[in-house]
Protein backbone atom coordinates (compact mmCIF):
# COMPACT_ATOMS: atom_id res chain seq x y z
CA UNK A 1 0.00 0.00 0.00
CA UNK A 2 1.41 3.42 -0.90
CA UNK A 3 1.56 6.43 1.38
CA UNK A 4 -1.32 8.28 -0.34
CA UNK A 5 -3.69 5.34 0.28
CA UNK A 6 -2.49 5.05 3.89
CA UNK A 7 -3.00 8.79 4.38
CA UNK A 8 -6.51 8.57 3.01
CA UNK A 9 -7.37 5.71 5.39
CA UNK A 10 -5.78 7.53 8.31
CA UNK A 11 -7.80 10.70 7.62
CA UNK A 12 -10.95 8.66 7.34
CA UNK A 13 -10.23 6.94 10.69
CA UNK A 14 -9.44 10.27 12.37
CA UNK A 15 -12.63 11.93 11.13
CA UNK A 16 -14.74 8.97 12.28
CA UNK A 17 -13.24 9.26 15.79
CA UNK A 18 -11.03 6.12 15.76
CA UNK A 19 -8.05 7.94 17.14
CA UNK A 20 -5.78 4.97 17.93
CA UNK A 21 -6.21 3.46 14.46
CA UNK A 22 -5.63 6.88 12.91
CA UNK A 23 -2.46 7.39 14.97
CA UNK A 24 -1.02 4.03 13.89
CA UNK A 25 -1.84 4.74 10.23
CA UNK A 26 -0.27 8.23 10.35
CA UNK A 27 2.84 6.69 11.91
CA UNK A 28 2.94 4.20 8.99
CA UNK A 29 2.65 7.14 6.59
CA UNK A 30 5.61 9.03 8.09
CA UNK A 31 7.62 5.83 8.12
CA UNK A 32 7.15 5.57 4.33
CA UNK A 33 7.23 9.33 3.68
CA UNK A 34 9.13 11.11 6.52
CA UNK A 35 8.47 14.56 5.01
CA UNK A 36 4.70 14.28 4.89
CA UNK A 37 3.67 17.53 6.56
CA UNK A 38 -0.02 16.68 6.84
CA UNK A 39 0.67 13.34 8.57
CA UNK A 40 3.00 15.00 11.06
CA UNK A 41 0.40 17.71 11.74
CA UNK A 42 -2.18 15.08 12.61
CA UNK A 43 0.34 13.22 14.72
CA UNK A 44 1.06 16.40 16.72
CA UNK A 45 -2.50 16.15 18.00
CA UNK A 46 -2.80 12.37 18.31
CA UNK A 47 0.47 11.32 19.93
CA UNK A 48 0.99 10.80 23.62
CA UNK A 49 2.93 11.90 25.71
CA UNK A 50 3.37 15.64 25.41
CA UNK A 51 7.05 15.42 24.49
CA UNK A 52 6.19 13.35 21.36
CA UNK A 53 3.54 15.88 20.28
CA UNK A 54 6.09 18.69 20.60
CA UNK A 55 8.59 16.62 18.59
CA UNK A 56 5.93 16.15 15.86
CA UNK A 57 5.36 19.96 15.76
CA UNK A 58 9.08 20.49 15.40
CA UNK A 59 9.14 18.02 12.52
CA UNK A 60 6.30 19.95 10.76
CA UNK A 61 8.22 23.21 11.24
CA UNK A 62 11.38 21.69 9.87
CA UNK A 63 9.45 20.65 6.74
CA UNK A 64 7.56 23.94 6.49
CA UNK A 65 8.96 26.74 8.66
CA UNK A 66 6.15 29.09 7.59
CA UNK A 67 3.37 27.01 9.18
CA UNK A 68 2.11 29.63 11.65
CA UNK A 69 -0.79 27.54 12.86
CA UNK A 70 1.51 24.73 14.03
CA UNK A 71 4.01 27.21 15.52
CA UNK A 72 1.27 28.71 17.70
CA UNK A 73 0.11 25.22 18.60
CA UNK A 74 3.68 24.23 19.57
CA UNK A 75 4.00 27.33 21.81
CA UNK A 76 0.81 26.29 23.57
CA UNK A 77 2.18 22.76 24.03
CA UNK A 78 5.45 24.12 25.45
CA UNK A 79 3.55 26.22 28.00
CA UNK A 80 1.53 23.18 28.93
CA UNK A 81 4.76 21.18 29.32
CA UNK A 82 6.22 23.90 31.55
CA UNK A 83 3.19 23.92 33.82
CA UNK A 84 3.29 20.11 34.02
CA UNK A 85 6.97 20.23 34.91
CA UNK A 86 6.40 22.83 37.60
CA UNK A 87 3.57 20.78 39.05
CA UNK A 88 5.72 17.69 39.04
CA UNK A 89 8.63 19.52 40.67
CA UNK A 90 6.55 21.03 43.44
CA UNK A 91 4.97 17.63 43.96
CA UNK A 92 8.47 16.12 44.32
CA UNK A 93 9.61 18.97 46.56
CA UNK A 94 6.64 18.31 48.80
CA UNK A 95 7.67 14.68 48.95
CA UNK A 96 11.25 15.68 49.79
CA UNK A 97 9.91 17.85 52.59
CA UNK A 98 7.94 14.85 53.80
CA UNK A 99 11.23 12.91 53.84
CA UNK A 100 12.80 15.60 56.03
CA UNK A 101 9.92 15.30 58.49
CA UNK A 102 10.35 11.53 58.53
CA UNK A 103 14.05 12.04 59.33
CA UNK A 104 13.20 14.49 62.10
CA UNK A 105 10.81 11.90 63.55
CA UNK A 106 13.54 9.21 63.27
CA UNK A 107 11.42 7.26 60.74
CA UNK A 108 14.37 6.17 58.67
CA UNK A 109 12.72 3.30 56.80
CA UNK A 110 9.76 5.43 55.68
CA UNK A 111 12.17 8.17 54.58
CA UNK A 112 14.24 5.72 52.56
CA UNK A 113 11.17 4.24 50.85
CA UNK A 114 9.82 7.64 49.87
CA UNK A 115 13.24 8.74 48.60
CA UNK A 116 13.44 5.66 46.41
CA UNK A 117 10.05 6.58 44.90
CA UNK A 118 11.14 10.17 44.31
CA UNK A 119 14.35 9.09 42.60
CA UNK A 120 12.43 6.63 40.46
CA UNK A 121 10.26 9.53 39.26
CA UNK A 122 13.11 12.02 38.84
CA UNK A 123 16.63 10.61 38.86
CA UNK A 124 18.12 14.12 38.73
CA UNK A 125 16.66 15.48 41.97
CA UNK A 126 19.80 16.61 43.81
CA UNK A 127 18.19 17.26 47.20
CA UNK A 128 16.68 13.79 47.17
CA UNK A 129 20.07 12.27 46.39
CA UNK A 130 21.70 14.25 49.19
CA UNK A 131 19.14 13.04 51.71
CA UNK A 132 19.41 9.51 50.34
CA UNK A 133 23.22 9.56 50.68
CA UNK A 134 22.92 10.83 54.21
CA UNK A 135 20.54 8.06 55.23
CA UNK A 136 22.50 5.22 53.71
CA UNK A 137 24.83 3.30 55.99
CA UNK A 138 26.60 1.07 53.51
CA UNK A 139 29.66 2.99 52.41
CA UNK A 140 29.53 1.55 48.87
CA UNK A 141 25.98 2.89 48.46
CA UNK A 142 27.08 6.25 49.80
CA UNK A 143 29.84 6.48 47.21
CA UNK A 144 27.35 5.69 44.43
CA UNK A 145 24.89 8.27 45.73
CA UNK A 146 27.56 10.98 45.79
CA UNK A 147 28.70 9.97 42.31
CA UNK A 148 25.14 10.65 41.15
CA UNK A 149 25.12 14.03 42.94
CA UNK A 150 28.40 15.08 41.33
CA UNK A 151 27.03 13.99 37.95
CA UNK A 152 23.91 16.12 38.46
CA UNK A 153 25.86 19.17 39.62
CA UNK A 154 29.54 18.97 38.68
CA UNK A 155 30.15 22.48 40.10
CA UNK A 156 29.22 21.41 43.66
CA UNK A 157 32.64 21.46 45.35
CA UNK A 158 31.32 20.25 48.70
CA UNK A 159 29.80 17.19 47.06
CA UNK A 160 33.08 16.51 45.27
CA UNK A 161 35.01 16.68 48.54
CA UNK A 162 32.45 14.48 50.29
CA UNK A 163 32.74 11.94 47.47
CA UNK A 164 36.52 11.96 47.87
CA UNK A 165 36.09 11.46 51.61
CA UNK A 166 33.67 8.57 51.21
CA UNK A 167 35.91 6.92 48.64
CA UNK A 168 38.63 7.04 51.30
CA UNK A 169 36.25 5.60 53.90
CA UNK A 170 35.29 2.88 51.44
CA UNK A 171 38.75 1.44 52.05
CA UNK A 172 38.83 2.43 55.79
CA UNK A 173 35.30 1.80 57.08
CA UNK A 174 36.33 1.80 60.77
CA UNK A 175 37.38 5.41 60.34
CA UNK A 176 33.93 6.26 59.10
CA UNK A 177 32.32 4.66 62.15
CA UNK A 178 34.65 6.67 64.42
CA UNK A 179 33.78 9.79 62.47
CA UNK A 180 30.04 9.17 62.98
CA UNK A 181 30.69 8.76 66.68
CA UNK A 182 32.53 12.07 66.90
CA UNK A 183 29.67 13.81 65.16
CA UNK A 184 27.25 12.35 67.70
CA UNK A 185 25.53 10.02 65.23
CA UNK A 186 25.69 7.00 67.51
CA UNK A 187 22.98 4.99 65.76
CA UNK A 188 24.78 5.25 62.45
CA UNK A 189 28.10 4.35 64.08
CA UNK A 190 26.55 1.35 65.82
CA UNK A 191 24.86 0.14 62.64
CA UNK A 192 28.12 0.43 60.72
CA UNK A 193 30.09 -1.36 63.45
CA UNK A 194 27.55 -4.20 63.37
CA UNK A 195 27.89 -4.48 59.59
CA UNK A 196 31.68 -4.46 59.93
CA UNK A 197 31.55 -7.08 62.69
CA UNK A 198 29.80 -9.46 60.32
CA UNK A 199 32.48 -8.81 57.71
CA UNK A 200 35.45 -9.05 60.14
CA UNK A 201 38.41 -10.91 58.68
CA UNK A 202 39.66 -12.57 61.87
CA UNK A 203 38.94 -12.97 65.57
CA UNK A 204 41.06 -10.06 66.74
CA UNK A 205 39.40 -7.66 64.28
CA UNK A 206 35.98 -8.88 65.42
CA UNK A 207 37.03 -8.43 69.05
CA UNK A 208 38.10 -4.85 68.37
CA UNK A 209 34.86 -3.97 66.61
CA UNK A 210 32.79 -5.76 69.24
CA UNK A 211 34.43 -3.69 72.01
CA UNK A 212 33.37 -0.54 70.17
CA UNK A 213 29.81 -1.86 69.88
CA UNK A 214 29.64 -2.59 73.62
CA UNK A 215 31.15 0.80 74.45
CA UNK A 216 28.70 2.69 72.24
CA UNK A 217 25.74 0.74 73.58
CA UNK A 218 26.83 1.75 77.10
CA UNK A 219 27.07 5.36 76.01
CA UNK A 220 23.54 5.12 74.62
CA UNK A 221 22.16 3.41 77.72
CA UNK A 222 23.79 5.97 80.01
CA UNK A 223 22.49 8.75 77.78
CA UNK A 224 25.90 10.46 77.57
CA UNK A 225 25.67 13.84 75.88
CA UNK A 226 27.52 14.57 72.68
CA UNK A 227 30.13 17.33 72.96
CA UNK A 228 31.05 19.02 69.69
CA UNK A 229 34.68 18.35 68.66
CA UNK A 230 35.23 22.10 68.17
CA UNK A 231 34.36 22.69 71.84
CA UNK A 232 36.72 19.89 72.88
CA UNK A 233 39.55 21.41 70.85
CA UNK A 234 38.92 24.82 72.39
CA UNK A 235 38.73 23.37 75.91
CA UNK A 236 41.86 21.27 75.67
CA UNK A 237 43.87 24.03 74.01
CA UNK A 238 43.63 26.32 77.05
CA UNK A 239 45.62 24.27 79.62
CA UNK A 240 49.17 24.77 78.39
CA UNK A 241 48.83 28.54 77.77
CA UNK A 242 47.32 28.96 81.23
CA UNK A 243 50.28 27.17 82.82
CA UNK A 244 52.73 29.28 80.81
CA UNK A 245 50.92 32.49 81.80
CA UNK A 246 51.23 31.64 85.51
CA UNK A 247 54.89 30.74 85.05
CA UNK A 248 55.64 34.08 83.36
CA UNK A 249 53.75 35.95 86.08
CA UNK A 250 55.84 34.26 88.78
CA UNK A 251 59.02 34.90 86.80
CA UNK A 252 58.16 38.60 86.56
CA UNK A 253 57.32 38.93 90.24
CA UNK A 254 53.60 39.26 89.44
CA UNK A 255 54.28 42.70 87.99
CA UNK A 256 54.92 42.74 84.24
CA UNK A 257 55.07 46.55 84.23
CA UNK A 258 57.74 46.87 86.91
CA UNK A 259 59.74 43.88 85.69
CA UNK A 260 58.98 43.72 81.97
CA UNK A 261 60.23 40.74 79.99
CA UNK A 262 58.69 41.07 76.51
CA UNK A 263 60.60 38.05 75.20
CA UNK A 264 58.67 35.86 77.62
CA UNK A 265 55.30 37.32 76.61
CA UNK A 266 56.05 36.64 72.95
CA UNK A 267 55.92 32.97 73.93
CA UNK A 268 52.21 33.16 74.71
CA UNK A 269 50.92 33.08 71.10
CA UNK A 270 53.43 30.31 70.40
CA UNK A 271 52.15 28.24 73.31
CA UNK A 272 48.53 28.89 72.30
CA UNK A 273 49.17 27.75 68.75
CA UNK A 274 51.31 24.81 69.84
CA UNK A 275 48.68 23.71 72.34
CA UNK A 276 46.04 23.90 69.61
CA UNK A 277 48.14 21.74 67.30
CA UNK A 278 48.74 19.21 70.07
CA UNK A 279 45.04 19.01 70.79
CA UNK A 280 44.05 18.64 67.14
CA UNK A 281 46.65 15.89 66.69
CA UNK A 282 45.61 14.20 69.92
CA UNK A 283 41.84 13.97 69.87
CA UNK A 284 41.51 12.71 66.30
CA UNK A 285 38.45 14.55 65.14
CA UNK A 286 37.51 15.99 61.80
CA UNK A 287 39.21 19.33 61.29
CA UNK A 288 39.81 21.65 58.35
CA UNK A 289 43.60 21.65 58.81
CA UNK A 290 43.89 18.05 57.60
CA UNK A 291 42.15 18.89 54.36
CA UNK A 292 43.57 22.38 53.82
CA UNK A 293 47.17 21.80 54.90
CA UNK A 294 47.65 18.17 53.97
CA UNK A 295 44.88 17.53 51.43
CA UNK A 296 43.74 14.43 53.28
CA UNK A 297 40.30 13.31 52.10
CA UNK A 298 39.01 11.94 55.40
CA UNK A 299 39.65 15.23 57.21
CA UNK A 300 40.73 13.40 60.37
CA UNK A 301 44.47 13.19 59.86
CA UNK A 302 46.57 10.18 58.97
CA UNK A 303 49.03 8.76 61.49
CA UNK A 304 51.98 10.40 59.72
CA UNK A 305 50.48 13.89 59.57
CA UNK A 306 49.21 13.64 63.12
CA UNK A 307 52.71 12.82 64.36
CA UNK A 308 54.04 15.73 62.29
CA UNK A 309 51.48 18.15 63.75
CA UNK A 310 52.05 16.82 67.29
CA UNK A 311 55.83 17.27 66.98
CA UNK A 312 55.31 20.83 65.72
CA UNK A 313 52.90 21.42 68.61
CA UNK A 314 55.39 20.16 71.18
CA UNK A 315 58.06 22.33 69.59
CA UNK A 316 55.92 25.43 69.82
CA UNK A 317 54.85 24.68 73.39
CA UNK A 318 58.25 23.69 74.73
CA UNK A 319 60.40 26.40 73.10
CA UNK A 320 58.95 29.29 75.18
CA UNK A 321 59.11 27.06 78.27
CA UNK A 322 62.77 26.32 77.64
CA UNK A 323 63.49 30.04 77.10
CA UNK A 324 61.69 30.77 80.36
CA UNK A 325 63.73 28.12 82.16
CA UNK A 326 66.90 29.52 80.62
CA UNK A 327 65.99 32.98 81.86
CA UNK A 328 65.34 31.50 85.29
CA UNK A 329 68.62 29.56 85.20
CA UNK A 330 70.59 32.70 84.31
CA UNK A 331 69.03 34.47 87.26
CA UNK A 332 70.01 31.53 89.45
CA UNK A 333 73.62 31.82 88.29
CA UNK A 334 73.87 35.49 89.22
CA UNK A 335 71.84 35.27 92.41
CA UNK A 336 73.59 36.42 95.59
CA UNK A 337 72.12 34.72 98.63
CA UNK A 338 70.81 37.33 101.07
CA UNK A 339 72.38 37.25 104.50
CA UNK A 340 70.33 35.49 107.19
CA UNK A 341 69.39 38.70 109.10
CA UNK A 342 67.53 39.60 105.92
CA UNK A 343 64.73 37.59 107.53
CA UNK A 344 64.24 40.51 109.98
Amino acid at each position, binding site marked *: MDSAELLRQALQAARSGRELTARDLFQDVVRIDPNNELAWMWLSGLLDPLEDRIAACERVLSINPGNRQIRAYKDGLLKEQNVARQNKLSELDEKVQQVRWYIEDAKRDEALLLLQNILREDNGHKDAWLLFADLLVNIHDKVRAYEAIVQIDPSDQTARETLKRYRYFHHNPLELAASYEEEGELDKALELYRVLATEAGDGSEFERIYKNIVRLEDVKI*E*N*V*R*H*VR*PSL*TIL*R*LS*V*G*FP*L*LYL*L*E*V*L*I*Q*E*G*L*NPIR*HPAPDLWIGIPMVIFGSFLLTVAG*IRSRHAIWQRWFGEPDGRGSNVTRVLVAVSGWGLVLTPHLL*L*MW*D*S*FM*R*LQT*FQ*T*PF*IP*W*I*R
Partner: protein
Amino acid sequence: MLPLNDTEPNRYSWFPFMTILLIAINTFIEVAKPLYLPDDIGMWRYWEFMMHYYFTPKLILSTEGPGILSSFSAMFMHGDFFHLLGNMGALWVFGRRVEDACGAWRFLVFYLLAGTSAHLLTVLVMYDSPIPSVGASGAIFGVMGAYLLLYPAGRIRTLVFLSIVPAWPRIRAGWVVLYFLGVQIIPALNILFSGANYGVGYWAHLGGFFSAAFIFLFMRPEAFARYLSDTPV
Protein backbone atom coordinates in the same frame (compact mmCIF):
# COMPACT_ATOMS: atom_id res chain seq x y z
CA MET B 1 42.48 10.47 109.37
CA LEU B 2 44.81 8.96 106.79
CA PRO B 3 43.57 8.08 103.30
CA LEU B 4 44.98 4.69 102.26
CA ASN B 5 43.50 3.80 98.92
CA ASP B 6 40.80 4.63 96.39
CA THR B 7 38.62 1.54 96.20
CA GLU B 8 37.05 2.31 92.81
CA PRO B 9 38.54 0.96 89.56
CA ASN B 10 39.82 2.96 86.61
CA ARG B 11 37.58 3.37 83.58
CA TYR B 12 39.81 4.43 80.69
CA SER B 13 43.33 3.20 81.37
CA TRP B 14 44.63 0.46 83.61
CA PHE B 15 48.04 1.88 84.53
CA PRO B 16 48.47 5.27 86.28
CA PHE B 17 51.78 5.95 84.55
CA MET B 18 52.14 9.64 85.42
CA THR B 19 51.08 9.27 89.07
CA ILE B 20 53.67 6.57 89.57
CA LEU B 21 56.30 8.58 87.68
CA LEU B 22 55.65 11.64 89.86
CA ILE B 23 55.88 9.53 93.01
CA ALA B 24 59.11 8.00 91.70
CA ILE B 25 60.66 11.40 90.88
CA ASN B 26 59.72 12.89 94.26
CA THR B 27 61.00 9.80 96.07
CA PHE B 28 64.25 9.77 94.08
CA ILE B 29 64.90 13.43 94.90
CA GLU B 30 64.30 12.74 98.60
CA VAL B 31 66.41 9.59 98.61
CA ALA B 32 69.24 11.42 96.83
CA LYS B 33 69.11 14.25 99.35
CA PRO B 34 72.35 13.26 101.17
CA LEU B 35 74.16 13.83 97.87
CA TYR B 36 73.15 17.45 97.46
CA LEU B 37 72.28 18.31 101.05
CA PRO B 38 74.52 16.33 103.40
CA ASP B 39 73.84 16.41 107.15
CA ASP B 40 77.07 18.30 107.83
CA ILE B 41 76.41 20.98 105.26
CA GLY B 42 76.45 23.80 107.78
CA MET B 43 73.91 26.46 108.54
CA TRP B 44 74.98 28.97 105.92
CA ARG B 45 75.13 26.46 103.02
CA TYR B 46 71.78 25.06 104.03
CA TRP B 47 70.30 28.56 104.01
CA GLU B 48 71.91 29.23 100.66
CA PHE B 49 70.41 26.03 99.27
CA MET B 50 66.92 26.98 100.49
CA MET B 51 67.19 30.48 98.99
CA HIS B 52 68.17 28.95 95.65
CA TYR B 53 65.78 26.03 95.39
CA TYR B 54 62.89 26.54 97.81
CA PHE B 55 60.00 28.87 97.07
CA THR B 56 60.31 32.23 98.82
CA PRO B 57 57.51 34.78 98.22
CA LYS B 58 59.70 37.81 99.00
CA LEU B 59 62.32 36.75 96.45
CA ILE B 60 59.65 36.12 93.83
CA LEU B 61 58.10 39.57 94.26
CA SER B 62 61.46 41.30 94.09
CA THR B 63 62.45 39.15 91.06
CA GLU B 64 65.55 38.02 92.91
CA GLY B 65 66.55 34.39 92.79
CA PRO B 66 65.66 31.99 90.01
CA GLY B 67 61.91 32.73 89.87
CA ILE B 68 59.88 30.00 88.24
CA LEU B 69 62.68 27.43 88.56
CA SER B 70 62.39 27.68 92.33
CA SER B 71 58.66 27.02 92.05
CA PHE B 72 59.31 23.78 90.16
CA SER B 73 62.25 22.67 92.32
CA ALA B 74 60.24 23.29 95.50
CA MET B 75 57.34 21.30 94.01
CA PHE B 76 59.52 18.19 93.78
CA MET B 77 61.43 18.45 97.08
CA HIS B 78 60.31 17.70 100.62
CA GLY B 79 61.34 18.67 104.13
CA ASP B 80 61.83 15.11 105.37
CA PHE B 81 60.81 11.54 104.67
CA PHE B 82 57.47 11.78 106.51
CA HIS B 83 56.59 14.92 104.58
CA LEU B 84 57.25 12.95 101.40
CA LEU B 85 55.29 9.92 102.62
CA GLY B 86 52.19 11.96 103.46
CA ASN B 87 52.20 13.78 100.15
CA MET B 88 52.93 10.78 97.98
CA GLY B 89 50.34 8.70 99.82
CA ALA B 90 47.72 11.34 99.00
CA LEU B 91 48.96 11.56 95.41
CA TRP B 92 48.55 7.80 95.02
CA VAL B 93 45.07 7.77 96.58
CA PHE B 94 43.63 10.73 94.66
CA GLY B 95 45.89 10.97 91.60
CA ARG B 96 45.21 7.58 90.07
CA ARG B 97 41.63 8.24 89.00
CA VAL B 98 42.16 11.93 88.23
CA GLU B 99 44.88 10.81 85.83
CA ASP B 100 42.46 8.24 84.44
CA ALA B 101 39.98 11.02 83.64
CA CYS B 102 42.64 13.21 81.99
CA GLY B 103 45.24 10.97 80.42
CA ALA B 104 48.88 10.96 81.56
CA TRP B 105 50.27 14.09 79.88
CA ARG B 106 47.31 16.33 80.52
CA PHE B 107 47.38 15.16 84.14
CA LEU B 108 51.02 16.23 84.37
CA VAL B 109 50.18 19.70 83.03
CA PHE B 110 47.30 19.96 85.50
CA TYR B 111 49.58 18.86 88.35
CA LEU B 112 52.14 21.55 87.46
CA LEU B 113 49.38 24.13 87.03
CA ALA B 114 48.02 23.29 90.50
CA GLY B 115 51.50 23.59 92.01
CA THR B 116 52.12 26.91 90.25
CA SER B 117 48.69 28.24 91.30
CA ALA B 118 49.48 27.24 94.89
CA HIS B 119 52.69 29.27 94.77
CA LEU B 120 50.95 32.19 93.08
CA LEU B 121 48.35 32.44 95.85
CA THR B 122 51.09 32.13 98.46
CA VAL B 123 52.88 35.11 96.92
CA LEU B 124 49.65 37.12 96.73
CA VAL B 125 48.74 36.49 100.38
CA MET B 126 52.18 36.29 102.02
CA TYR B 127 53.91 38.71 99.67
CA ASP B 128 56.39 39.89 102.29
CA SER B 129 57.30 36.47 103.65
CA PRO B 130 61.02 35.60 103.50
CA ILE B 131 60.30 32.07 104.71
CA PRO B 132 61.11 29.46 102.09
CA SER B 133 58.60 26.68 101.51
CA VAL B 134 58.95 23.27 99.96
CA GLY B 135 56.77 20.28 99.08
CA ALA B 136 54.28 18.99 96.56
CA SER B 137 51.28 19.56 98.79
CA GLY B 138 49.93 22.54 96.79
CA ALA B 139 49.81 20.42 93.64
CA ILE B 140 48.39 17.49 95.58
CA PHE B 141 45.62 19.63 97.04
CA GLY B 142 44.81 20.52 93.42
CA VAL B 143 44.54 16.82 92.65
CA MET B 144 42.33 16.31 95.72
CA GLY B 145 40.07 19.16 94.66
CA ALA B 146 39.83 17.66 91.19
CA TYR B 147 38.93 14.32 92.74
CA LEU B 148 36.18 16.00 94.75
CA LEU B 149 34.74 17.55 91.58
CA LEU B 150 34.96 14.40 89.48
CA TYR B 151 34.23 11.61 91.95
CA PRO B 152 32.37 13.05 94.95
CA ALA B 153 30.68 9.68 95.51
CA GLY B 154 33.93 7.69 95.35
CA ARG B 155 34.93 5.65 98.37
CA ILE B 156 38.31 6.07 100.04
CA ARG B 157 39.70 3.42 102.35
CA THR B 158 40.79 5.61 105.28
CA LEU B 159 42.71 4.84 108.43
CA VAL B 160 41.02 6.40 111.43
CA PHE B 161 41.63 5.98 115.13
CA LEU B 162 38.62 5.52 117.37
CA SER B 163 40.39 6.56 120.55
CA ILE B 164 43.40 4.23 120.24
CA VAL B 165 41.66 1.56 118.16
CA PRO B 166 42.56 1.71 114.46
CA ALA B 167 39.83 1.22 111.83
CA TRP B 168 39.89 1.52 108.03
CA PRO B 169 36.36 2.15 106.75
CA ARG B 170 35.51 3.16 103.19
CA ILE B 171 34.54 6.80 103.55
CA ARG B 172 32.91 8.91 100.87
CA ALA B 173 35.60 10.89 99.03
CA GLY B 174 33.67 14.09 99.48
CA TRP B 175 33.92 13.86 103.26
CA VAL B 176 37.63 12.96 103.22
CA VAL B 177 38.56 15.86 100.93
CA LEU B 178 36.32 18.33 102.73
CA TYR B 179 37.93 17.29 106.02
CA PHE B 180 41.39 18.08 104.65
CA LEU B 181 40.10 21.34 103.19
CA GLY B 182 38.41 22.25 106.45
CA VAL B 183 41.54 21.91 108.55
CA GLN B 184 43.32 24.42 106.28
CA ILE B 185 40.86 27.28 106.60
CA ILE B 186 41.26 28.48 110.18
CA PRO B 187 45.10 28.50 110.18
CA ALA B 188 45.03 30.17 106.75
CA LEU B 189 42.78 32.94 108.07
CA ASN B 190 44.96 33.23 111.15
CA ILE B 191 48.03 33.73 108.91
CA LEU B 192 46.18 36.35 106.90
CA PHE B 193 44.83 38.39 109.79
CA SER B 194 47.33 37.90 112.60
CA GLY B 195 50.48 37.02 110.68
CA ALA B 196 50.84 33.70 112.50
CA ASN B 197 53.55 31.33 111.33
CA TYR B 198 52.79 27.61 111.46
CA GLY B 199 55.59 26.32 109.25
CA VAL B 200 52.92 24.84 106.94
CA GLY B 201 51.90 26.32 103.57
CA TYR B 202 48.18 26.60 104.28
CA TRP B 203 47.67 29.21 101.59
CA ALA B 204 49.55 27.07 99.10
CA HIS B 205 47.17 24.23 99.95
CA LEU B 206 44.18 26.48 99.36
CA GLY B 207 45.69 27.86 96.14
CA GLY B 208 46.21 24.34 94.86
CA PHE B 209 42.73 23.32 95.94
CA PHE B 210 41.03 26.22 94.14
CA SER B 211 43.01 25.51 90.98
CA ALA B 212 41.07 22.24 90.81
CA ALA B 213 38.42 24.26 88.96
CA PHE B 214 40.76 24.09 85.95
CA ILE B 215 40.45 20.30 85.79
CA PHE B 216 37.74 20.67 83.13
CA LEU B 217 40.38 22.02 80.76
CA PHE B 218 42.29 18.75 81.00
CA MET B 219 39.70 15.99 81.03
CA ARG B 220 39.63 13.56 78.15
CA PRO B 221 36.63 14.10 75.83
CA GLU B 222 34.74 10.95 76.94
CA ALA B 223 35.15 11.81 80.62
CA PHE B 224 34.03 15.41 80.05
CA ALA B 225 30.93 14.25 78.13
CA ARG B 226 30.07 11.89 80.98
CA TYR B 227 30.55 14.67 83.53
CA LEU B 228 28.19 16.95 81.57
CA SER B 229 25.63 14.15 81.40
CA ASP B 230 25.59 13.59 85.18
CA THR B 231 26.94 10.11 84.57
CA PRO B 232 29.81 8.70 86.70
CA VAL B 233 33.02 9.99 85.13
